[in-house]
């Protein structure tokens, strides 16, 4: 007599897996990693390796000694958080601060909510904002993109383009004056500008974004609605007074805009579940980012905007349901 397995249908399973998705995201981040190493040299490697190892380590140790549950470090999600954390800090950030950041990301923002899938906020962003508030000086001294030509200690730092513009406008300069002080659009596209290590190259980020779209890891809704909102909003301001407001292309290409739109806002755990909700979420991030950039205290607003919208996601999920089958009144049949 044979013994047969009994279980409910379906009896087949697609080859989708959490691991595949997470490593897909890691793969999509490779172009941006390479660019950061090209422009920031050994420092970028140090930040990337340290943040990744620290995130994986904290996840492992918390699971082993505090939660006492099975380890999930192989699913790739801690690695994704590690790389995103690295992407969101300057290349000369002291190592111990990176480790503190990893602890905040994994311990506070992820594991204390119950681990992968339960966190409300994007862990890497919580860590970034934590670091920004705790160590504002170190988090805003941006090394110039000098590649491997400089040693590990001897870096030239300077403000980011967003910082230059914010300060300059505050001091009464006009945009045409400020554009001469900031890098060209071509430099933004390739990444030859100051900033967090993962945010500098528009082309590398877009490459990763298209890869994730192709692999169906993300859908277009969040990035398109977020960036579309930014373009429209800044175009209105710029149209009203081009000397006082930066143009849409500048906003799109500088700071964490693309990194945020492609890799942070699309984080499946902390974003809405339906396409309708995702459009609203992207719109909210876009509006908040520009409000903070233009009128807020910080030159950059993407991280804050995403975190604020993260908090609203449960409400968005309540309000936006998928299109149900058979809910529109059907065709009336006359008998």
């Amino acid at each position, binding site marked *: 007599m*044979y013994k*047969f*397995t*009994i*279980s*409910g*249908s*379906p*009896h*087949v*399973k*697609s080859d*989708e*897996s*959490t691991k*595949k*998705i997470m490593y897909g995201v890691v793969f999509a981040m490779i172009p941006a990693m390479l660019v950061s190493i090209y422009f920031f040299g050994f420092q970028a490697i140090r930040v990337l390796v340290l943040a990744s190892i620290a995130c994986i380590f904290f996840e492992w140790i918390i699971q082993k000694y505090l939660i006492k549950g099975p380890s*999930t470090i192989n*699913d790739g*999600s801690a690695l994704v958080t590690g790389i995103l954390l690295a992407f969101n800090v300057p290349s000369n950030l002291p190592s111990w601060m990176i480790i503190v950041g990893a602890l905040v990301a994994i311990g506070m923002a992820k594991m204390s909510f119950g*681990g*992968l*899938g*339960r966190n409300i906020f994007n862990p890497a962003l919580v860590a970034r904002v934590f670091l920004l508030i705790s160590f504002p000086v170190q988090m805003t001294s941006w090394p110039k993109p000098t590649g491997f030509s400089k040693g590990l200690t001897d870096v030239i730092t300077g403000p980011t383009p967003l910082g230059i513009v914010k300060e300059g406008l505050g001091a009464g300069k006009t945009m045409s004056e400020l554009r001469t002080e900031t890098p060209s659009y071509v430099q933004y596209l390739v990444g030859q500008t100051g900033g967090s290590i993962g945010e500098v190259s528009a082309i590398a980020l877009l490459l990763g974004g298209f890869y994730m779209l192709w692999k169906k890891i993300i859908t277009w809704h969040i990035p398109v609605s977020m960036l579309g909102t930014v373009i429209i909003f800044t175009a209105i301001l710029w149209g009203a007074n081009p000397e006082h407001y930066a143009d849409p292309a500048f906003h799109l290409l500088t700071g964490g805009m693309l990194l945020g739109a492609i890799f942070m806002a699309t984080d*499946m*755990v902390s974003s809405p*579940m*339906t396409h309708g909700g995702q459009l609203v979420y992207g719109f909210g991030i876009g509006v908040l980012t520009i409000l903070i950039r233009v009128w807020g205290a910080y030159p950059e607003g993407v991280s804050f905007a995403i975190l604020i919208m993260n908090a609203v996601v449960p409400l968005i999920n309540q309000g936006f*349901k*998928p*299109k*149900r*089958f*058979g*809910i*529109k*009144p*059907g*065709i009336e*049949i*006359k*008998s």
Partner: protein
Amino acid sequence: MGILKTFALGGVHPKENKLSANAAIEVLDPPKQAFIPLGQNLGAPSKPVVARGEEVKTGQLLAEASGFISTPIHSPVSGKVFKIDNILNASGYKQLGIIINVEGDEWMEDIDRSEDIVTNIDYSSEEIIDKIKKAGLVGMGGATFPTYVKLMPPPGTKAEYLIINGVECEPYLTSDHRMMLEKGREIVVGTQLLMKALKVDKAIIGIENNKPDAISHLTELVKNAEGISVQALKVQYPQGGEKQLIKATVNREVPSGKLPISVGCVVQNVGTAFAVYEAVQKNKPLFERVVTVTGKDVKKPSNFLVRIGTPVQQLIDAAEGLPESTAKIINGGPMMGKAISSTEVPIVKGSSGILIMKEEEAHRKTESACIRCSKCTYVCPMGLEPFLLSRVSRVGKFDIAEKEMIMDCIECGSCQYTCPANIPLLDYLRLGKNKTGAIIRSRGKTA
């Protein structure tokens, strides 16, 4: 061909694995002993009209319908009633059934056993429905809903389209495909009979594009059949679901909680259309059907014409035996079929296939945490949120489940098939549906 039609929401593309697509239908000998469960239709089980020791002929009435949604059962074999006792059914439950010791194969005289295809329709709508009812026809696609009930639209509704389901969207299964190729003419006559019964002048045979031979064959056959057209459809699971097929073929959406007839449609399977032909034109009750026997390690994936009541083991033997690697046997297709615990269970009216899975395919992957990827929502053909429904079902919040429309779930399994975290979503959805359904019914009673 232009853009192929399909249904609007969700859907998945499991690997087709139609291993037996080229295996012509083989007639299997009657079993030595036939096991005939009394509940073979959705609804009330049938009441036996034969007694122990009685001689029966093939096609003789064994049990009669016991209520509106119920069907009679006819003997698939000739021989002597051995006993009426509990037998194991495909769901793993003991169920009352009739066991017959087979002797020879003597058919009832009024069954027309000739090969000729009778195309003239000499019956009125009522006579056709009556013959279908008396022949014990149920939906052959697996739902086993009594066929004649669907042919009598409730007051206030009117049928406009008959839709013949030749989609066979379940991976592996090929019985409908083979029927369309080998019994095409009979299916067309069966369709005409159903049209007449329903008093409709339009019928659409929906077939997925992975069966081009069936599409071209039937298209050719319906050329002279007025009102019948063949519609090629894009391959998309679960297109064989009634609501999905109606959406795909006539672009109407059956409202939530309503039957297809509310948008003027009646759906019947191709196998049912064939059985209608036999019942009406040949006087033959439903006591045999085509069953696919398949699986990656099965030596001879086949399609058999078998008598109801034949133990599954006999089909497996005819397909050159149970492979060494067997770890799971499914009655039906891999997406919606039921795993069976023993090869002794009999083939019933609703059995469309026997799928034999090997060790590597038989087990579920380890479940991990939901990563809120929404993929289950994107693929749900009913526009539901499976992650949410399974979560609330798990913790017993059936009021939320009801509000989030759990009762609309068609149990197609697309969500669980897709979930990257390997969450057994449908297990929880079934549980939630059961409980929510019970709550809704009890409310109906007290109100």
